[in-house]
């Protein structure tokens, strides 16, 4: 799937609107799903979906290589974080500005992973690891905010996130090999 998407993106760069439409059809569920999970309301999720795909069309050069789905999720998360920030109506916000640049560390081994495999790998994590990971990714809050809200010590949260990500990584590796 990601191979096809990368090829379609090549055509989008040449202003091929059919290729763009095909990309939309295969990825709107992902973009809208992430936005919906983060924002919790359909109208806002639709707006973010529109914004993200217009960005794909207007600035396709921002995607270089690697897993297109992972890239478009990152773009979606950043736009949804903007909306969360504007809802908070705070000038100085503690939310992370963006996901880290992953260029150069894209992992070919994980390029073909699909939603069901990720869902299952996440579901297999112990709740104490899965919860801070999901809250951080979809809730857009910092680890410090998690500690404040839950009363769990900062160091414990950090360790649980790291252990959870390690476990997730190995579960995804196993899923790919299966």
């Amino acid at each position, binding site marked *: 799937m990601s191979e096809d998407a990368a090829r379609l993106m090549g055509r989008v760069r040449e202003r091929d609107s059919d290729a763009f439409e095909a990309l939309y059809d295969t990825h709107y*569920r992902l973009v809208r799903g992430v936005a919906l999970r983060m924002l919790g309301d359909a109208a806002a999720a639709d707006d973010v979906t*529109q914004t993200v795909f217009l960005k794909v069309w*207007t600035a396709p050069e921002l995607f270089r290589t690697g897993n297109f789905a992972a890239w478009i999720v990152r773009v979606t*998360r950043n736009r949804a974080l903007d909306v969360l920030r504007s809802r908070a109506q705070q000038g100085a916000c503690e939310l*992370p*500005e*963006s996901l*880290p640049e992953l260029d150069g560390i894209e992992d070919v081994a994980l390029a073909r992973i699909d939603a069901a495999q990720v869902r299952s790998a996440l579901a297999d994590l112990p709740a104490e690891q899965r919860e801070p990971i999901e809250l951080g990714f*979809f809730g857009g809050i910092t680890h410090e905010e998690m500690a404040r809200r839950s009363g769990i010590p900062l160091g414990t949260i950090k360790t649980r996130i790291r252990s959870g990500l*390690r476990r997730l990584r190995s579960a995804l590796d196993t899923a790919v090999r299966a």
Partner: protein
Amino acid sequence: MNDHPMLDDIALYALGVLPAKRAASDDPNAVCAETVRAHLATCAICRKEYADLGPAANLIGLAAEAPADDAARDRIKARIMAQVRRESVVPLRRPERRGGTTRSVVWPAYLVAAACFVFALISTISNLALVGQLRDVKTQLAQTQAHSSSLARNLADERTTLADVMDANAKHYAITDGEVITRGRRIYVALHDLPEPPRGHVYQAWTLPKDAKAMKPSVTFVPDARGLAVIALPVDAHATDAVAVSVEPDGGSKAPTTKPLFVVPLS
């Protein structure tokens, strides 16, 4: 587990939960994305950890893929494709302006799409389905041109503004009804739902140079008929600590004479 003190922070960085930067008032030892990035450049142990965890973290979003929804797919697609399916060059007529002349301009397709994107961005922020109502790109751009002088002034400026506002590396500082956006050394103020200033008055932007005690006057502007304004500030973002906007008499003031609508510290 603590074989290397920074490893837990690498996981936080990979997940995207670290603050981008720390305020000067924070604990100087507290970690942020910026310090992790700097550390990654120098530490092979952490680079290896990041190479392991980063791709896994980046796939978490896949778990949220929504079930197929043909109605939603088609509804959003109609909004997007209306803006995408355009010829390479779209001729447009400038709308009538008060006492002005009417002339034709030609907008390249990428600018059409980019302008639509800015509107989409603003509508997303304001949580209005603005773009959904703007089905016709000609109408939309006519409005853009008539109402947003900074977007309409000249193509070169527009290109820079739009590229900056869209850029993934731009920083967005949310304010009520808008954003202050920095990209590299440039600063923009994007406002919506801005009421017309009282008669004989304008809005004026203010900037606080680093290490300065007083705000310096910047550009004056008025919003469009829908209350929209996108303004580029002619100062260096790296040398600026804060941005503000206030209502001032026509022609602007040397120092703010009214309480600013907002003051945004730039980190």
